[in-house]
């Protein structure tokens, strides 16, 4: 019996924090790729500490719904899941290349496949592009548009910026958008100065965050100048200093994220049948059809 466990941060304060996790779990359930799909959280229940004991299967894949490698994926999750003998060297990662480690979870005395985070997977690049399609309602968006991929920056985690650059570079290589830039919240190039980094009249701004919350709904819209105060709301697009900014909100809410979760499990050996193709199709942006 094959089981998927999606682990995410969750929140004590924001009721919508877990919404993307649940939505992607539902998409994957509907694909039939796993006998069961469970969710576990750091700030909600079941907690990381207890999620594995709710799992029935004997072939267990744990996929962290986090944007980069770092404190959570390297310390908190393995510790709380009680992965015996975990050491970050198990992943042998340069900060972007963690794939999976197979370890016994002491809690249930069973092997689990502990996967790298979704945010650094190559398939995440497609989700960022799909997010741009969703927010513009144009499945061919690219020509005449710039794309800004935005993240925290290195202040809290050096790998955070690596993930942003990795995806921005990959999208730039595709020559789909006129310009692609990686911007940050707490270091240069800063998202506050977005119009200075683009010549295009239209720029899609995609924050590399899992869930909408303080950073994506308050910080970034105010810093970029989409609104004076987030409580006022903002239009999509909103013109700032002559640049029309199409603000996409957290990329993690894009339905195609379910595909990246599946890719992580597949890389770790999960047998998915045709679920990958199914999920890519069912999560396609309707507006472009």
């Amino acid at each position: 019996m094959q089981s998927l466990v999606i682990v995410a941060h969750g929140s004590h304060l924001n009721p919508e924090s877990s919404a993307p996790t649940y939505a992607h779990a539902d998409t994957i359930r509907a694909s039939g790729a796993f006998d069961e799909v469970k969710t576990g959280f750091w700030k909600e229940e079941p907690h990381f500490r207890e999620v594995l004991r709710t799992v029935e299967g004997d072939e267990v894949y744990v996929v962290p719904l986090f944007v980069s490698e770092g404190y959570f994926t390297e310390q908190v999750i393995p510790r709380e899941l009680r992965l015996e003998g975990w050491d970050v060297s198990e992943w042998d990662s340069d900060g972007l290349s963690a794939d999976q480690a197979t370890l016994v979870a002491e809690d249930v005395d069973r092997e689990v496949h502990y996967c790298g985070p979704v945010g650094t997977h190559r398939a995440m690049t497609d989700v960022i592009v799909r997010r741009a399609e969703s927010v513009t309602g144009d499945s061919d968006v690219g020509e005449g548009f710039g794309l800004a991929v935005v993240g925290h920056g290195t202040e809290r985690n050096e790998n955070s910026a690596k993930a942003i650059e990795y995806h921005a570079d990959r999208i730039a290589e595709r020559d789909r958008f006129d310009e692609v830039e990686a911007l940050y919240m707490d270091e240069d190039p800063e998202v506050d100065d977005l119009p200075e980094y683009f010549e295009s009249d239209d720029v899609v701004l995609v924050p590399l965050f899992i869930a909408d919350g303080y950073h994506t709904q308050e910080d970034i819209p105010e810093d970029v100048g989409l609104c004076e105060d987030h409580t006022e709301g903002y239009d999509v697009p909103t013109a700032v200093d002559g640049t029309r900014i199409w603000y996409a909100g957290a990329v993690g809410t894009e339905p195609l994220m379910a595909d990246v979760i599946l890719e992580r499990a597949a890389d770790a050996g999960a047998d998915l049948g045709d679920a990958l193709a199914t999920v890519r199709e069912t999560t396609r942006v309707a507006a472009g059809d």
Partner: protein
Amino acid sequence: MADSTPTASEAAATGDDPDVPDIDLPSDAFDAVLDELGDPDDPDDELRFEGFTVAVSGDGRAGDADARYVLDPAGDDPRTGLSERDLHAALAERAAAVTDWYVFERVVGEFGPRRAFLRWIEDADGATVAARYAALAAGVERAWGQLRITARVTDRGERRYEVRHEADAGVPREELTVHDDPLDARDIVKLDERGRYRPLKTAPTLRGGWIFPDVGPKAVYETVETIYPATIANWHREREGELDVSHWRETMERQSGIYGVIRTWDRGEGYEHVNWVAEACCDDSQCLKRREWEYDDETDLDVDGGDGVFPCREPCSVVVSAARKWTRLESEQSRTYAFELTPSEKEQLEAIVDAVADGRIDEIREADTKEGANRYRARFLRAKLFDEDGNLGGVPTDPDDE
């Protein structure tokens, strides 16, 4: 016939136990019996039901046309040489016992927490099949947190369950919002009845107004586990004597990052601060789990752990987050402040703290100025006693600000 032991349905017919329902043996249950007897990994095995066993006699293979069976009622003469048709007739007379086996072995399955929970609901490890089927025909009720779970048996021996809020006991079904997908419960648990987010799913603030009127064994388990995550798993471990409790000290020692500071709150000067945490957060009025963690494995806390049916095995993330705040606050040194208060003003401050701590603010009526925590009373107190900087009695919090 050698078989003289009355089956449940025969007993019902003779009036020995009039409440036991008649059960029709469904073909899937009979097929499962043949399937089990024909298991090539276990060919000699006899299949045990309550009160009798069934086995294949001779060299035949269960399910084959020429197979013969033996049915052995304990303490009585076995019936041998039964054809499949004879076996079906014999099992149909004992349909309650056969469907009971079928439900737990084939429908519920092996998964420990689910199996234990569903057996507990109907006391399957204590009561006889006849007694349970009689009780299930009338409906067996169990409480789990704020849930009321009612189990029933159909005339085919299947189990069906109803789940609703305890406060909705007796409310007609049509007045409640009907659900059948266990995952719907994620929306039920998200907000309380006033629309506020519930960060702790075992808080006694589950809203009512909904019902899962008719779900099967797996779905009732999933529904309960969605409303109260991991509570069945932990309850099951506790029943097996295997609950892995992590006490306060080890839990806080484990914390890192912004929560690493909490371990500095334990200064080897006793555990009164943890009593206060447990009284604040873990009381039954705040959380329905029964707190099993203590200060450490040698030092119990002095406050009650509560009466919940499911255990709490370690300080949860809500407690850890709050403890981080208290670690900071409790590192401050106390000071002496001098205020002038009337006796009633002192009591009013106490009433305000009580009202907030007990979540009673919304119960205090707008014009009920007898209540110290009444809004007009509080506004009057503020107008009278606070200076323009919000200092009580005009006394600055930090004496250097004077």
